[in-house]
C-alpha cells in the first residue's frame, strides 16, 4: 500500500488529463457533435490542402480555360462560372477565406468579450458598471447592420471584414463571461487566496479565468458559426475583399450575372451548401460542448 509520491505539478497535470479524458468520453456520446467535428475536419483539411487539390491558376480570370457558365462535365465537376473558371476550384479556395475570416473574427470578438466581461464582472464599481452599460448598448444595436455600416467606411480587405464582424459581435460573450465571473468571484477559495495576499492579476489568472474558460470555449464554436454567416452576407453585399474568392463572393457573382434566371444551379448551390455545412457543423459541436461543460443540460438533446 505505498502511494506513489507526486509533485504538485504532476498531480495537477494528471488531474487535468483526467478531466480532458472525461470530457472527451462525454462528448463522444453526442452523435451530432461527432458528426459536426468530422465535417469540420474535412473542411479544414480542404482549406489547408487547397494548393494541392486545385491549382491556384484556376482562380485567375485571364487563365480561365472553360466556357461561360458551362454545366458540370467530366472536366469541370461542378461546371464553370461566368469567367470560365472551374466552380470546384473556386469552392476549394473559397473555404480558406470563409474559415480564416470566421476564425479571425471570432478571436477578436472573444478577446474583447472576455476582457470586458472579466473586468466588469470582477472589479464591479464604476468601471464595471460603465463596461456593463456599454455592453448592453452595443448588444441592442442590430449587429449586422452595424457591421455593414462599418465595413462601408473602410477599403475592403480580409482584415477589415474580420475586424468589423469581431467588434460588432462581442457583447453576447461579454455578458456570458460577466455572469460567470460574478459567480466565481464569491467562492470561498478566492476569499482564502485573497487573505493569503494574492493580487488581482494572480486571482484573475489563476482562479477566475480557468473557471470561465470552458464557457468561452463552448461559446467560441457558436461564435465562429455566426461569424462565417456574417462574412457570407457581407461578401454577398459586395463588402468582402475583392481580391479573394470566398463562398459569399461567389454567390454575389452568381446573383449579379443572373445565374438564377439561366438556371445555373452549379454556381448557386455548392457555395451555399458549403456555408450551411460548416455553420451547422460548428453549431453542432458548440451545442455538444455546451452540454459537456454544463451538466444541467445533460440528457437534454
Amino acid at each position: 500500500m505505498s502511494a506513489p509520491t507526486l509533485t504538485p505539478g504532476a498531480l495537477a497535470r494528471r488531474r487535468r488529463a483526467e478531466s480532458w479524458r472525461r470530457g472527451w468520453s462525454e462528448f463522444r456520446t453526442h452523435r451530432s457533435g461527432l458528426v459536426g467535428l468530422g465535417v469540420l475536419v474535412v473542411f479544414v483539411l480542404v482549406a489547408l490542402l487547397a494548393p494541392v487539390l486545385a491549382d491556384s491558376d484556376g482562380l485567375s480570370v485571364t487563365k480561365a480555360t472553360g466556357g461561360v457558365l458551362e454545366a458540370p462535365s467530366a472536366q469541370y465537376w461542378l461546371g464553370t462560372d461566368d469567367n470560365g473558371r472551374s466552380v470546384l476550384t473556386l469552392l476549394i479556395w473559397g473555404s480558406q477565406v470563409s474559415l480564416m475570416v470566421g476564425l479571425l473574427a471570432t478571436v477578436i470578438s472573444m478577446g474583447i468579450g472576455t476582457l470586458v466581461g472579466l473586468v466588469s464582472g470582477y472589479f464591479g464599481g464604476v468601471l464595471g458598471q460603465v463596461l456593463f452599460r456599454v455592453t448592453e448598448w452595443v448588444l441592442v444595436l442590430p449587429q449586422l447592420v452595424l457591421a455593414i455600416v462599418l465595413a462601408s467606411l473602410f477599403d475592403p480587405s480580409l482584415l477589415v471584414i474580420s475586424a468589423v464582424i469581431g467588434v460588432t459581435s462581442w457583447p453576447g460573450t461579454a455578458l456570458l463571461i460577466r455572469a460567470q465571473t460574478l459567480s466565481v468571484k464569491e467562492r470561498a477559495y478566492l476569499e482564502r487566496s485573497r487573505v493569503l495576499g494574492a493580487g488581482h492579476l494572480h486571482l484573475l489568472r489563476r482562479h477566475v479565468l480557468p473557471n470561465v474558460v470552458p464557457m468561452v470555449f463552448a461559446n467560441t464554436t457558436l461564435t465562429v458559426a455566426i461569424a462565417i454567416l456574417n462574412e457570407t452576407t457581407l461578401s454577398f453585399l459586395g463588402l468582402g475583399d475583392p481580391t479573394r474568392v470566398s463562398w459569399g463572393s461567389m454567390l454575389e457573382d452568381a446573383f449579379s450575372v443572373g445565374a438564377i434566371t439561366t438556371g445555373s444551379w452549379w454556381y448557386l448551390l455548392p457555395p451555399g451548401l458549403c456555408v450551411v455545412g460548416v455553420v451547422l457543423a460548428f453549431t453542432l459541436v458548440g451545442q455538444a460542448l455546451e452540454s459537456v461543460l454544463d451538466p444541467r443540460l445533460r440528457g437534454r438533446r
Partner: protein
Amino acid sequence: MSVVSEPALASAGAPVRRGSGYLRFAATRVAGSLGSLAFLLVLNFFLFRVLPGDPARTLGRGRFTTQEQLDAFNAAYGLDQPMLQQFVTYLRTTLHGDLGISLKYRVPVTELIADRIGPTLLLVGTSTVLAAVIGIWLGVHSAWRHGSRFDRFATGSSLTLYSMPEWWLGLLLIVVLAVGVGPVPGLFPTGGLHSVDVDVWSFAGVLDTAWHLVLPVATLTLAYLADYAMVMRSSLLDEIGADYLTTARATGLREAQVRNRHAVRNALLPTTTVVALNIGFIVTGAITVETVFSIPGLGLLATEALSVPDYWVLQGTFLVSATAVIGLNLVANLVYGLLDPRVRA
C-alpha cells in the same frame, strides 16, 4: 444560441432591491433605453464624421472635383466648425428629423425613408407573426414528444435553417418556384412588390401584392422560425419534469390540457421576449431578402446606397433601424416585466 439575447442574462448581477414595484422597474428600463439612444446618436456621429478622417470625402465621396465645391459642402454641413460645435449641430438637425440629403436621389433622406418604410413593415410584420406562430407550434410539439421522429425532424430542420444565410434560401426559392426547374413552370413572380400596371389600392392590386409577397414572406418566415422553435422547445423542456405538471395530471386533466393550460403557459414567457428581442436579427433579414427579391423597402434602399456609396442614406437607415430595435426592445422588456414579476427585482 447567441443570436438570442436572454433577458435573464442581461440583468444577472444587478443588485436585488426588495419590494421595488413595476414602476421602478419600468423607469430603469426606460432610462436604459434612453442611454442606448444617446449612445447610438454619439456612435452615429463618430462613425460617419470622425472615423473616416475626412467627412467631406466620405459623405460625398468622389463628388467634389474643385476646392470651391468642397468648401461649399463643408460650410453647408458645418464641417468647417470645431468638433463640439459640429456635434451640437448634428444633434439639433437629427432631433428635428433632418438626416441630410441623398447623394443619389437628391431628396431629403427622411422623405426617402418615409416612402420606403411601408413595404418593409409589411414584409417583416407578416413574416414575424407567421414565424412566431409556426415556430412556437413546432417547439411545443417537439418538446412534448422529445426524442420522437417528429422532434428529430423539427429540430434538425430548425438547426439547418438557422445555419443558412436567409437570402440564399430566397435565391433557391426563386429558382425553384419563380423561374421553374425543368418541366415545372414558375408559379410566383421573381421579384418586386407588385406588377407595374395595376392600381395598388384596388382589390386586384392587393391580391397582386400578396402574390408578389408569397416568396419573400416564406423566406423570412423560414429564416425566423428556427429561433422561436428552438427557444420554445428548450424552455418547455425545462418545465416538462416539473411537479406541478404531475399534480395537474393527477387531478385528471387530459394530456393536451396539461400541456396547453399549464406547461406552455409558463414556457411561453421566455419565448415572447425572444420574439421581440430578436428584432435586430429581423432587420438584417429584411435587408438581404429585400435585395434578393427587389422589394423597394428600407433594406433595398440601404444596399443600393452601399454601391454609390450614399452615406447620408446609410447613416439615416442605420439610425432609424437601430432606433426601432431599441424601442421594440424596451417594449419587450416592459411586457416581460408585466408578465413575470421575478425580473422586476
